């Protein structure tokens, strides 16, 4: 397999193409501009459509239209732009339209900064839009993983008829690493017989989200809920890193998890047995993994590039069975492995 040296943004775009995505609608925003730029070059080459929308809102509804027309389609943006898409995301989830949305997070709130951040965790996993819905949220920690998760995202979206969010921090987007594009085995997916393609030889199709009858709307919500339950059962993805013998466990995702790995190596050299649970799917969240580890490990350090968001899910998993501490940097500041080492050392020093 040929190794290519690419930014995460470019790799995500190329992976989308290779996963059969032929439609991209988006609006420029740092630090993810390489995605639309790459798409604007490559999509016309493969007979696809790149369209720079007039806004993030227009982009997400173009995605709604293309997905509802049966196509594989994606959009991408960064924090403020993703906030603007919240209504549309709620609609897409409600209308059960498959699509992939990449959020290459930057420092917030407001205009914030353009450096890496993980402060949109809540928005992504709890639902930044209105109503009871969930995105499938996947968080790569290397460029290579960004490629495989992007490809998988399109299949998952089609499988569940649900939007999938690829949640990357600015590092994932702008870092360059070697990547290999492996052909994914073909997955058997349900036919899109619900899509708007012209009512020829069949009853007309309808893509909608309104249900003025509360009983009907409740039914629809329960249907969605059951889908999320199925995801919770089948789609949890995580990495256990040296947890077997660990006395302390770090919880981290995305590029912070890589930094934590370096910290763990340094700590182990000092004889401190540290491991890590790295959630790859943020929704569904690996609650069980934390429930399990908490039976054995009494100290868990959550490290995020935020003021503390994933920590709530870790606590919900741990459910009081272990002490959950937090270390975070924000606004584009990045926790260094040295800082993580220091935090863990503090933690193991104090008696539980």
């Amino acid at each position, binding site marked *: 397999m040929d190794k290519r040296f690419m930014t995460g943004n470019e790799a995500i775009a190329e992976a989308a193409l290779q996963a059969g995505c032929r439609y991209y609608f988006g609006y420029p925003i740092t630090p993810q501009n390489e995605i639309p730029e790459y798409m604007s070059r490559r999509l016309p080459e493969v007979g696809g459509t790149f369209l720079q929308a*007039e806004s993030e809102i227009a982009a997400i509804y173009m995605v709604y239209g293309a997905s509802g027309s049966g196509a594989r389609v994606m959009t991408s943006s960064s924090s403020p732009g993703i906030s603007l898409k919240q209504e549309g995301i709620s609609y897409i989830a409600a209308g059960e339209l498959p699509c992939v949305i990449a959020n290459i997070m930057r420092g917030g709130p407001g205009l914030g900064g353009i450096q890496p951040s993980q402060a949109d965790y809540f928005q992504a996993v709890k639902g930044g839009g209105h109503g009871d819905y969930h995105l499938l949220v996947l968080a790569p920690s290397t460029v290579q993983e960004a490629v495989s998760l992007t490809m998988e995202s399109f299949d998952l979206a089609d499988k569940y008829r649900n939007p999938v969010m690829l949640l990357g921090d600015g590092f994932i987007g702008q870092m360059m690493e070697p990547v290999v594009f492996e052909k994914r085995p073909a997955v058997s997916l349900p036919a899109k017989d619900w899509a708007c393609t012209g009512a020829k030889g069949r009853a*007309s199709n309808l893509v909608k989200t*309104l249900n003025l009858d509360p009983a009907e709307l409740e039914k629809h919500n329960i249907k969605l809920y059951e889908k999320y339950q199925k995801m919770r059962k089948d789609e949890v993805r995580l990495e256990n890193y040296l947890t077997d013998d660990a006395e302390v466990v770090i919880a981290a995702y995305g590029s912070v998890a890589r930094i934590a790995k370096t910290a763990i190596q340094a700590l182990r050299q000092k004889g401190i047995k540290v491991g890590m649970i790295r959630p790859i799917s943020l929704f569904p969240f690996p609650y069980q993994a934390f429930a399990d580890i908490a039976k054995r490990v009494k100290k868990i350090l959550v490290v995020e590039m935020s003021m503390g968001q994933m920590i709530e899910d870790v606590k919900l998993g741990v459910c009081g069975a272990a002490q959950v501490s937090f270390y975070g940097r924000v606004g584009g500041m990045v926790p260094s492995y040295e800082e993580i080492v220091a935090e863990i050392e503090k933690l193991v020093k104090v008696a539980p």
Partner: protein
Amino acid sequence: MITEMNNMERVFGRPESLRPVSTHYCPGCGHGIVNRLVAEVIDELGIREQTIGVAPVGCAVFLYNYLNVDMFEAAHGRAPAIATGCKRVHPNMTVFTYQGDGDLAAIGTAETIHAAARGENITTIFINNATYGMTGGQMAPTSLVGQKTTTSPTGRKIERAGYPIKMAELLATLDGPAYISRVSVSSAKYVVRAKQAIRKAFETQIKGLGYSLVEVLSPCPTDWHMTPAAAIEWLEENMLPHYPLGEFKVPQEAR
């Protein structure tokens, strides 16, 4: 009476693309007329199976219950973006949006202007009833100066709420649109012309000439607090002078 008509031929009836169901529109609402006109045009052009519609959020939200074609329900104002996404996937389908004045000229302004500027090859049927029908009669961007609505209880004032927007004229200044016209459904004569315009708009799209829009002046007796007949009259006396009927842009080839 039906028996009496038995040996006669039906010269006017429900178009095939319009489902045989009663609508939720209020008595005398212009939406009903325009829904029918769209169905008639689809029938005449024989494109029912090649048509995809986008319904707005507004009184016409249930358009999909009436038209027997594949349809999207849009979010408020976003129909042009949805139609764009759809048209790019199905360039050979006839894709149209059906939108109210709140939907198209307020919240959806950007999507409308840009679909038009792109010359997106879609058709928009724009129902201008000078109010937000569905939400109970608030002021619309197209409400007339002095018009009383639930959010302009003493009449629309220029100093506070500005001027009513003439969307057809505004859009006609762009390079993207191929066909832009304004019609009315306030009399049978106008209804005939309205249908011709809608047909022309669909044909513009089928020929691949670019964006087309038909603005339809349409009564909302309920939120105007008038009888249907009075609403028709009010429309002709007040809206027609401010919103002149006519074609503001016609396709190059048809000039």
